[in-house]
């Protein structure tokens, strides 16, 4: 049961971040002079999966403040994007404007993921509230 929840959360993060990245990439492709090839699409998916995996794993660390958590999440994104995407897959070049653009895209994807997760939590909270009122009626 717990694994199902984890997989569902993991999958939601990948899908949301990949969608946001693809839309931003499509919008900025001409300006960045980087055509959206099949290899690049799979590479971007790999980066999104790596970000999701790192965030998922570092989530188990009991951080004391939200600021520390955000800082570690930012580090997760940087490692996946520039380490995995730049050094290993070679689809993120290390030029200054590109690095800034990629960081901007990553932040947008992060905000998108947080928003979707919040909507999911709202749905779960509504479900809990419904069950609470049912329990009180008994």
């Amino acid at each position, binding site marked *: 049961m*717990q694994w199902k929840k984890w997989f569902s959360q993991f999958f939601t993060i990948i899908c949301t971040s990949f969608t946001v990245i693809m839309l931003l990439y499509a919008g900025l492709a001409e300006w960045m002079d980087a055509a959206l090839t099949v290899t690049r699409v799979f590479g971007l998916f790999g980066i999104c999966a790596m970000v999701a995996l790192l965030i998922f794993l570092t989530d188990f660390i*009991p951080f004391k403040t939200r600021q520390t958590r955000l800082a570690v999440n930012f580090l997760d994104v940087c490692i996946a994007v520039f380490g995995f995407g730049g050094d290993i897959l070679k689809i993120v070049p290390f030029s200054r404007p590109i690095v800034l653009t990629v960081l901007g895209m990553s932040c947008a994807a992060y905000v998108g993921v947080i928003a979707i997760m*919040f909507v999911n939590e709202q749905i779960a*909270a509504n479900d809990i*509230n419904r069950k*609470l009122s049912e329990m*009180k009626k008994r």
Partner: protein
Amino acid sequence: MKAMKLFIEQSDDYDNDAEITIRCGMTDERLESIIAHIRLQMFSVSGTKDGEVRVLPLGDILYFESIDERTFAYLQSDVYECAMKLYELEAQLEKANFVRISKSCIVNILKLDSVRPLPGSRYEATLENGEKLIINRHYLPAFKSKFGI
């Protein structure tokens, strides 16, 4: 939903201790709820306030909180200090309607009024008396599973 039979044997032959036996095949949601209610009424903890020791029925307790290695039981308008540690209470109340929601708090879910999500995968729980408690992200899966989510 399966039919349920209720037998109550009342006689002067029995002493003061009542005995409850449930005979069933598989337990369903309704039966689990009945069992949780019985557990809630069966256990009680003793609490101290102003030097006076009182037995606190679990059904009256809103939540337990640990502050500076001391455990307190919060009722509608009273606070009692308990001798038990929070982890001991957690183990005792695992099958009742209590759930750990943070490092220092165990809440009675039957005393919850509502919950709402907060940014950062946390929830804010509002109790019947209007008090608000934070459900931390690491305790959220256990909290949700109490509601079958």
